[in-house]
């Protein structure tokens, strides 16, 4: 097999493999959360009172804080990509660091929220709020798992950017960025759906 053979040519669509794959994966993620929201809508309609009372128990100011943190980290992620594409390694590292901090902060706030719920016995199977708190833990839980899932490669890239003179794969960061914005995007729906009580 001659190594001169070049079958893995330039992508046909001119879009990087990683990016298409990530978008396809995000389409899949959208359907995943669609499943949750579809059932959420139905059960909210049939259990409106329960959902209303449940939402009263949640601390929307904390969630609001988290919203800002996530939006902020989305911004810093976009900036990080912007600077990496312009070979601005220092700034890339700063913004990526900020993004990681944001993710971390988000999880800390979440931790406080969850432990408060735990102390007040506000988890599924405890009282008549079960349906609502089922959804609360389901949706925020999966969302938090996505946050963790995003942090791992971010931290990896962050340290790689120290060991090498610069992180060498801007397209990978861009792909990760897509994912990270998606995490933000899901929160944009989860926040009003769970925390805010629409009269």
């Amino acid at each position, binding site marked *: 097999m001659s190594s001169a053979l070049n079958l893995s040519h330039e992508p046909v669509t001119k879009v990087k493999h990683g990016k298409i794959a990530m978008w396809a994966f995000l389409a899949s993620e959208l359907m995943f959360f669609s499943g949750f929201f579809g059932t959420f809508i139905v059960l909210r309609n049939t259990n409106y009172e329960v959902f209303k009372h449940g939402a009263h128990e949640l601390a929307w100011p904390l969630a609001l804080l988290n919203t800002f943190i996530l939006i902020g980290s989305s911004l810093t992620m976009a900036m990080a990509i912007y600077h990496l594409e312009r070979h601005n390694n220092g700034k890339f590292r700063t913004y990526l660091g900020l993004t990681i901090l944001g993710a971390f902060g988000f999880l800390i706030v979440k931790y406080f929220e969850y432990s408060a719920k735990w102390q007040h016995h506000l988890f599924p199977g405890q009282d008549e709020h079960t349906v609502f708190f089922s959804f609360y833990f389901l949706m925020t839980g999966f969302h938090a798992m996505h946050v963790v899932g995003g942090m791992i490669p971010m931290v990896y890239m962050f340290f790689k950017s120290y060991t090498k003179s610069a992180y060498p794969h801007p397209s990978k960061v861009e792909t990760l960025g897509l994912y990270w914005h998606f995490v933000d995007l899901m929160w944009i*729906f989860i926040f*009003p759906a769970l925390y805010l009580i629409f009269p």
Partner: protein
Amino acid sequence: MSNDHGKVLPSYMKVFATLCTLTLLTVGAAEFIHFGDLGPIPGYSINIFVGIVIAVVKVICVMYIFMHLKFDHPMLRFFVYVPVFLFFVMSFALNFLEKWTYTR
């Protein structure tokens, strides 16, 4: 990404500012103002539609600017359009539950 470079950063900031404002607006629309009821189903006020519209605007901002849908290959948009369409199909059918047809 090979679009006009000068405009990218300011557009990010604009999106960020929009997102923050809209977030505050949602909270306001949900917790503090009551626009009035909509139909017989409990929990369906005009507020909820305000909330949904705001969320959709926010999401469009994120997708088109932060996620570059506006600048990238148009094919990529289908990865959003199709799931959204299917979400509507699914929600439509799911909400036809028997609760309202069999039980009185």
